[in-house]
């Protein structure tokens, strides 16, 4: 094993310090919330806290932040109100549970949370109720659930020359190069919390579909274009968006997004860039500089791609997005209008008409070149 240089050692130290600090911040925040409730009880008062309203009327688009955020409306959730007592207690339990997870550096899926509650005589009707309470905790603390070691099921993956160092218990200090396994690495808790050490890549390519991801790996897009390839598996999960943001912010890598040539694909790119209304209470999930490079509506005509008729719901979705302030100008508006005019869509696989490698050999280079000017 190669000896690490002093510089590397101090870097490692710094990284672990950073991770510890983040954990400490989370724990301190939870403790301060807990202490407030504790004091209320001790003083003979019904504990309560304020929670930002997540109603539609309170979700506004912030042009400066380039994402949806919650407005200033908030509601009081009080343990004095008998109809709120149950959800109050559930939220208290979740904070308590998140606190344990964070302290013990253990991770939990959303489903785990639902079942774990039963050990503490806290009932959730179903997982959607517990999921809702998790969003409540995010809203109160303005932290994504991943910070509390709560993760959704994994379905997205990553491949490329990126060295990471694990921080989860049992793997601390272990490093991994993410180009070692050609099927890619699933983006789970260990990867999301890992330190990003270094990379030779110069760009991140987020691609909507697993099939294309495999093709990109096969065709060595990582090496040929010095890139890290990420399969978002449809709409990118929070952990994937967090990772994209970190790759952009920490490793200073530009992010481009490649999707199917339809309105849903366009919106997948938009969510990576500026978040979703559902997560308006969170602010660290967006990559405002991410670029959508295709497949555009105009590409359908330009590349003479085989197309499929749009369904009624596709068209309705187009009209819905036209009302979204983020689609008011630029490429977003232009492409949406063309989709509506064509009433047809094309998948990434459509390039196979011109040969399996056409997309990586012809289309991708053009788009990468184009991205520089976007």
């Amino acid at each position, binding site marked *: 094993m190669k000896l690490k240089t002093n510089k590397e050692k101090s870097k490692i130290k710094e990284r672990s310090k950073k991770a510890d600090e983040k954990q400490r911040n989370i724990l301190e925040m*939870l*403790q301060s*919330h*807990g*202490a407030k*409730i*504790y*004091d209320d*009880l*001790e003083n*003979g*008062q*019904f*504990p309560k806290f304020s*929670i930002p*309203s*997540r*109603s539609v009327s309170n979700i506004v688009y912030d042009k400066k932040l380039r994402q949806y955020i919650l407005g200033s*409306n908030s*509601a*009081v*959730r*009080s*343990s*004095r*109100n*008998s*109809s*709120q*007592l*149950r959800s*109050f*207690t559930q939220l*208290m*339990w979740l*904070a*308590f549970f998140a*606190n*344990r997870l964070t302290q013990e550096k253990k991770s939990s899926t959303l489903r785990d949370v639902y079942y774990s509650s039963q050990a*503490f*005589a*806290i009932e959730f009707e179903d997982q959607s109720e517990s999921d809702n309470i998790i969003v409540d905790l995010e809203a109160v603390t303005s932290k994504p659930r991943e910070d509390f070691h709560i993760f959704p099921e994994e379905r997205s993956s990553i491949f490329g020359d990126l060295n990471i160092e694990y921080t989860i218990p049992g793997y601390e200090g272990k490093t991994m190069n993410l180009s070692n396994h050609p099927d890619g690495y699933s983006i789970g808790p260990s990867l999301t919390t890992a330190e990003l050490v270094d990379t030779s890549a110069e760009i991140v390519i987020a691609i909507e579909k697993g099939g294309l991801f495999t093709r990109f790996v096969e065709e060595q897009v990582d090496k040929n274009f010095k890139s890290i390839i990420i399969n978002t598996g449809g709409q990118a999960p929070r952990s994937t968006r967090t990772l994209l943001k970190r790759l952009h912010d920490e490793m200073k890598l530009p992010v481009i997004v490649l999707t199917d040539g339809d309105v849903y694909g366009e919106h997948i790119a938009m969510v990576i860039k500026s978040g979703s209304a559902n997560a308006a209470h969170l602010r660290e999930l967006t990559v405002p500089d991410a670029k959508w490079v295709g497949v555009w509506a105009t590409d359908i005509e330009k590349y003479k791609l085989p197309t499929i008729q749009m369904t009624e719901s596709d068209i309705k979705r187009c009209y819905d997005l036209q009302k979204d302030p983020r689609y008011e100008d630029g490429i977003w508006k232009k492409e949406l209008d063309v989709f509506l005019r064509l009433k047809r869509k094309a998948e990434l696989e459509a390039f196979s008409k011109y040969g399996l490698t056409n997309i990586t050999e012809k289309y991708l280079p053009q788009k990468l070149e184009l991205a520089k000017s976007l």
Partner: protein
Amino acid sequence: MSLIKEKFNQISPSEFFYSNRDLAGFSNPTRSLYTAVREFVENALDACDQKGILPDVHLIIKSVDPEKSDPKPYILTVKDNGPGIDPEHIPLAFGTVLYGSKFGLKQARGMFGLGATMAILYGQITTNKPVTVKSSVDGQTQDEFELLLDIQKNKPIIVKHNTKEVSKKGLSVSICLEGDYSKAGNKIRDYVYETSLITPYASITFDDPKGEKFSHPRFVKDIPPPPTIIRPHPHGIDVERIRRMIVESQFEIPNIDDAMIEKVRKDLGLSVKNLSFTVIMEKAKKKWKTLSRQVRVVIALMSFLKMDFEKLNKIKIEEIDMPNKKLFYWDFGDSQSKSIDMDPESPYFKQLTNTVQGEHMTTFLTKRFQRIGPTTALKFAEFAGFKPEKRMGTMTNQELVNLSDSLQKFEDFLAPDPSCLAPLGEEPLEKGIKKFFNPDFAAVVQRPASAYSGFPFIVEMGIAYGGDIKTGGPHVYRYANRIPLLYDEGSDVVLKVVNDTDWGRYKIKGEPPFIIVSHICSTRIPYKTAGKENVADRPEIERELRLGLQYLSRKLASYMSKRGQADMAKKRANLYAKYIPLIATFATELAGKKKEPNYKKILEIENVDESQKIVEEKNEVENK
């Protein structure tokens, strides 16, 4: 010529009831045993009520042969501490159908004392055993009779009669009858139980054939005031009844014989000799106010005839023709009919008019009906289109019909005098309900007296919820004149009113534990059948029941909403008790403390400020 001879038999009342005994509730051994119990117990209670005695009633049913299976003969005995019956009346009272003392217009449990005799008759038919009656009216001597009924002749046969010394007043009646206690037992026990609820001032004990003893001691010491016999109310009187009243109000011209003349002389305080017409008339003028009606009539006649006693003795009054002011008489001396003119200006003319043509209408109304004073009588005469001084004796048939109709329609009569009624009263009723059901809530109401067809009635009702009351309510306890009504409830007016009520409107839902007690008191309960088990739906009675029930239901509803609030508060308190400790546990670990906070103070705060709650709920809505 017809060869068929039709034979008409006049049957006695006994015979009639013998062949129609199911009319009176003696249709089968089960029903008969129950009806017999009712008749004797009710007679005992009535007898005590009338004399203001706190009743002690002892009911005993024994099987003659306990080994036999039902239906079989039973000995039914009912003893009371009432006034007893004079020995000379006993054979007729217990050995004749339709002999009784209950024919006046006042409230009593039984009517006409018919049922007891029917029970005796039924016992005799089924077992051929006599009835045993023991009675003491003075608390010293007791007469004991054994009687059989001669059904054809409707006459008693005295089998045995003896007397002995006793120390207590009262009556004991014992009959042997075919019955079915295994089937009737439930009803009889219910009857005794329910009777003691509506007769809280009575002690009732029941020894049943299986050796069980049911004791219901009195829990109210005051007996309600006994009812009085009163005049009829003008509403609902019919033509026939008016005709009879007019006949009662008219006086016949007295037969002027020696005895009558002697009476007049004595009443005037005159000696036998030297009595001139003038002396007699002067004396009569002086003593007028003290004279009886008969005497006055004789004096009036004498004044027109201008005769002394001697002459008067020799004539016979034939006709008094008031409209033509003529007086016809037969002169025995001349053996011919004579007439004289009467002076209408004479004060004696009016006296004769009164006698012959009856009273003025106004006098008739005020004297013979309840609730009519002189002013009302005048108003009524105008309303009905009669002159106030109209003589009742001169009414034509058509006028009688008009009068009867107008009496029904005139609305200014006061409600009937309820003094002939004996409602239980709100306080004893409520006490009874509370004692019997131990409810969480009870309310009672006594409606003001009202009348149907001229018969006054009063409705008393009670309602109770929770406590010992079984679920599946409303359970309805029906009473009429302090008798529980147990059979045929489906067709009863009370049930109709209860079933018409939308209980959801009164916040009563599901299978609620609640009871309704209704008591209808009347001089005549409009039973649908002779079995006296269900009350017909007269609109006036239905209305009073409805109003009474509405009043009580509103009270119950307000209790229910308070109870609902209390339940809610309890529920909330339970929620706090469940969740606050959990919150405390989680907060303790979150805050990194060792000891749990003292949250007990919060749990003690039970009444959460409602207004604050509403504000918070509003916030929650916004949150969603």
